[in-house]
């Protein structure tokens, strides 16, 4: 069964008014269960919008969206997915442990069960010693790990990530990418990952969806075929460089109407 099925999705903001913005037109995309898919493209191509549509944080103007075999709204209500943003979005008045417990609280879990799951999650992201720290006592990379632990706390089959490593330095970033891959491998989680870093997209993904702006649409889907388990050695692999070249060429094909790149449209 496919995890996400997107059929003829379009999204326009300010529909019908003089400043209507066509964020996405006619998107078709099928994401298989257990697959890692990145969305990449220049600012304004609607990659974050597409992610929010899958998350049912916004409604499409037209088209059909099926998540885990049900409507996107039902999938949201059932907490079928976990989500992480560029800002870790931790609640500064809650300890690390309580932050991870929040989605479980909203599901109505009792305290013992919540604590057990939070402990499990903290082990997963290797932050067991920091359970009772407050977010501001952690580094940016650690905060982002807590946010990922929180997103995974309900054991979702789908993980939606909007540039989760965008604010981290390069070393931390590469380290986090490897950790994310090993976590997903262990849990079999499907991931939809928004980024504007080509190496990041290629390193992480089975498929890279290249998008273009005005109106946002999918221009090409690049298959990344890297043999075996991905680790730091992968970054020196010729298949990795081949993937980067393919994505870069696909992005070059995208007509750029502005010169600003690498600045995100949040």
């Amino acid at each position, binding site marked *: 069964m496919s995890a996400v099925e997107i059929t003829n999705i379009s999204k326009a903001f300010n529909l019908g008014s003089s400043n209507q913005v066509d964020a996405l037109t006619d998107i078709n995309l099928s994401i298989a269960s257990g697959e890692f898919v990145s969305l990449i493209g220049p600012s304004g191509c609607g990659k974050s919008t597409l992610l*929010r549509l899958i*998350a049912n*944080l916004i409604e499409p103007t037209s088209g059909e969206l099926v998540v885990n075999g049900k409507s996107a709204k039902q999938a*949201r*209500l*059932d*907490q079928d*997915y*976990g*989500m992480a*943003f560029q*800002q870790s*979005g931790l*609640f*500064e*008045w*809650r*300890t690390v442990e309580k932050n991870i417990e*929040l*989605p479980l*609280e*909203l599901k109505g879990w009792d305290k013992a069960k919540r604590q057990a799951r939070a402990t499990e999650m903290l082990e997963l992201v290797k932050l067991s010693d920091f359970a009772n720290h*407050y977010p*501001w*006592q952690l580094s940016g990379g650690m905060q982002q790990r807590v946010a990922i632990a929180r997103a995974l706390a309900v054991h979702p089959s789908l993980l939606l990530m909007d540039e989760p490593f965008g604010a981290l330095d390069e070393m931390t970033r590469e380290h986090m990418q490897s950790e994310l891959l090993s976590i997903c491998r262990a849990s079999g989680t499907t991931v939809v990952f928004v980024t504007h870093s080509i190496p990041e997209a290629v390193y992480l993904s089975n498929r890279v969806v290249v998008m273009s702006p005005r109106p946002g649409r999918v221009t090409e889907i690049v298959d990344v075929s890297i043999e075996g388990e991905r680790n730091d050695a992968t970054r020196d692999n010729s298949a990795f460089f081949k993937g980067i070249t393919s994505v870069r060429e696909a992005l070059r094909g995208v007509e750029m109407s502005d010169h600003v790149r690498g600045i995100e449209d949040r």
Partner: protein
Amino acid sequence: MSSRSSSIVRSVLPPAVFGVAFIAVWELVVKGFNLKPYFLAPPSKIWQKFTENIDLVWGAAKVSGTNALIGLLLGAFLGMAMSFVLSRFRFLNNLITPLAIALNAIPIFVLVAVLNNMFAITSEVPRRIMVTLVVYFIVLVNVAKGLTQVSPTHVELMKSYAASDTQILRKVRIPNAVPYLFTALKISAPASVITAFVSEYFGGSQNGLGSRITSNIANSKNAVAWGYVLGACLLGLTFYVISSLLEGVATPGGRAKRTKEGR
């Protein structure tokens, strides 16, 4: 531990030395230039009058302090209640907040003269209403800000958890507003004492610190008036210190410190 105590010494010692030096210079100037007591009383004389009249000062402080405290609690309660209403109904927010800010900027305590007309001449009610009003607007503006200005990421997260509006209120908006409430209380606490004093200038019973200061000055008992001023300072300071301590207790994990460091 020793580094901690030495840092306390470092932060307390300079202002303490400065304060003592200031009082010493004051004393010397009054004595040295032989200033008349009706012009400026020396600190030693003020302290003497303060201790002599300590019962009267304490009695007056209780009257003003009670007015300030009742107004503070009532104003904080009403301000919080109204801010919840405003955050629930946004159109009211746009209607009332600019008005509240404008009212905050004008010295509305002159209204006490009008209120005095409405109640018995010995009533403390007009003064308490006045304090309530002043505190109400400070708390309203701040807490409403705390309830509405939440991080968009937090709201999106809560939506992704399928949280209801009530859950978002309980788990995001209210905790977010807590530091704002304590900031408001820290501003309101001294303001409530000041308003209680000033309210006494507009007639009514001559029983509070504010009215005692004016009546003693009118009788040329300058040093006694200064003694009451000292009492007024101590009362204001007490209110401020208590509100600061409350903030420390109510915001866990040094959150106040973090917000001060300006995220």
